[in-house]
């Protein structure tokens, strides 16, 4: 891991004017960030900053411009109160790091480092999760299409999948598009002569290997 450098990054500090706000801004400037401070504020837009600090004591629904989760940029919660209601609201914003009041000369650099690190990690994992989700959906669709082929053409699972793959290669279409066509009743592979060997679909779906 390289030593984190935040030079030139844009920081937006959503915190009422007090010693904490001043301490955060001062530290950020020392670290080479471009700092802007706003309070009162509502619907703070993500595109104006690379990282946002927000006051968890006075935060409210509508403080940020975006809705839903996860947030589009690293957030750093600045906490004073430990009242569960405040913690509950803060957690709902999904901050990437936390900073404690009173803010002194230490803490801001660590919070920034943690925030960018955990935000990047979260992004990577989120992308990975999305890829897996798409793949799962695709596989489920192909298996449903294979089941249709098995029933309609009286073939086993291996043969049904072979027919799908064959058609996918022939037409140069992704496998799930072929699956879509079958499920929509727009295409069915021609009946094959092969006899079903065993009801292998269940074994296949639960991760069992075909005995060929």
């Amino acid at each position: 891991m390289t030593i984190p450098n935040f030079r030139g990054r844009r920081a937006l500090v959503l915190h009422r004017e007090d010693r904490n706000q001043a301490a955060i801004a001062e530290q950020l400037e020392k670290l080479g960030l471009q700092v802007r401070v706003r309070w009162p504020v509502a619907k703070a837009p993500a595109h104006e900053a690379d990282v946002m600090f927000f006051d968890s004591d006075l935060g409210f629904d509508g403080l940020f411009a975006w809705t839903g989760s996860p947030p589009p940029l690293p957030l750093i919660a600045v906490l004073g109160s430990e009242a569960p209601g405040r913690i509950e609201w803060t957690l709902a914003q999904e901050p990437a790091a936390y900073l404690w009041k009173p803010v002194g000369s230490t803490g801001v650099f660590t919070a920034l480092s943690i925030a960018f690190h955990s935000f990047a990690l979260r992004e990577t994992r989120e992308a990975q999760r999305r890829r897996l989700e798409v793949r799962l959906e695709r596989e489920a669709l192909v298996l449903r299409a294979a089941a249709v082929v098995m029933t309609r053409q009286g073939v086993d699972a291996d043969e049904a999948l072979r027919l799908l793959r064959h058609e996918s290669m022939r037409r140069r279409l992704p496998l799930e598009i072929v699956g879509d066509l079958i499920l929509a009743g727009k295409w069915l592979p021609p009946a094959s002569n092969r006899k079903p060997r065993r009801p292998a679909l269940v074994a296949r779906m639960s991760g069992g290997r075909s005995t060929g």
Partner: protein
Amino acid sequence: MAALVGRASIPMAVVFSTSGSYRTVGQEMLNGVLLALEEVADTSAFGFRFEPIIRDPAGETAAYGRECEDILRRGDVRHVVGCYTSSSRKEVIPSIEKFDALLWYPSHYEGFESSGNVIYTGASPNQHIVPLLQYMLRERGNRVYCVGSNYIWAWENNRILREIVQVNGGTVLSEKYVPVGSTDVGSVIRDALSKRPDFIFNTLIGESSYAFYRAYAAAQAPSRSGSGRVPITSCSLSEPELLSIGGAAAAGHIASSVYFQSIDRPQNRTFVTRYRARFGEAKLTSADAEASYVAVILLANAIRACGSSRVDEVRRAVYACRLDAPQGPVWIDPENNHSFLTPALGVSRADGDFDVVWRAEQPMKPDPYLVWFDVNSIGRNRDGASGTDRAGDRVRRLREVPK
């Protein structure tokens, strides 16, 4: 003791807002402190007197921090009595901890804090909102309308309420917030009346709260006075505030408090008499005045016991002090620096007093983080058994036995 021989003078900071939107309460607190200061000065057994440095932050949060830091920087002040709102307390704690001073904080609050440099003499949430809801759910029903000032006191009490009410199968009909200091409450009142709650839970403070009680009474049919109305409940309503509301509008509401002027004990009668003699015959005492008085007397007793005003020695000594306060016995829990206090419920009267309708049998251990509070223990005691009689609470009961 040597250091204190010869009527030594011990400087003490007193930081209350006697101007600004919650000045009524700030004045009560200051009065409580002044009464205690004079009692200490007049009691030769103490062997010292306090030299107060009084500041008024006028309800402005940042000013609390400035005033406190300014006084502590002098170097000779170790004890600060003051603050009312949680934001004001949070504002001074960094300075208090930096200078290793002791803040004597005399207000009920929403809990979820415990600083080694703060002695909390007001009620913790298990001593104010929990007993109130226990009573209201049993006596009135579980359809609740919440209205409060838009800050942490209201937010957190409403969160606790929501949890308790929902576990009891009840409904929070609405949760309305008014900016601190605003008296624009008309639309909230119309909404509250139209939703027909079993009771209203009010966490408004200062002028907002008084305006709410007045407008609420004005919005009722003339036949609906006093007990005929849906009651407004509160964990902060006090006697002087009833006078600020004025007349019939102040009557028939329910307050949870560890102190009422009408508590019938010799110690309280003395307190009330002295308070009136000092501040005027028409003056009423309150929980805020009592907690402030208690804070200073506890501090004085601790200094007398250890012979020093050093923070570490005073803190150790105060844990061993037991005070027969106007409300009853009060002492500090070394586990969290909050006070053992006796919760009570009162119904307000037009003359500015409360009729006490329920009072705990003994002082209750403070539970600022509601660690020992089981939300399922409320509202299930309709057969008359008290929560502490249940087997699961035996351990807790042992912890509550007075020293």
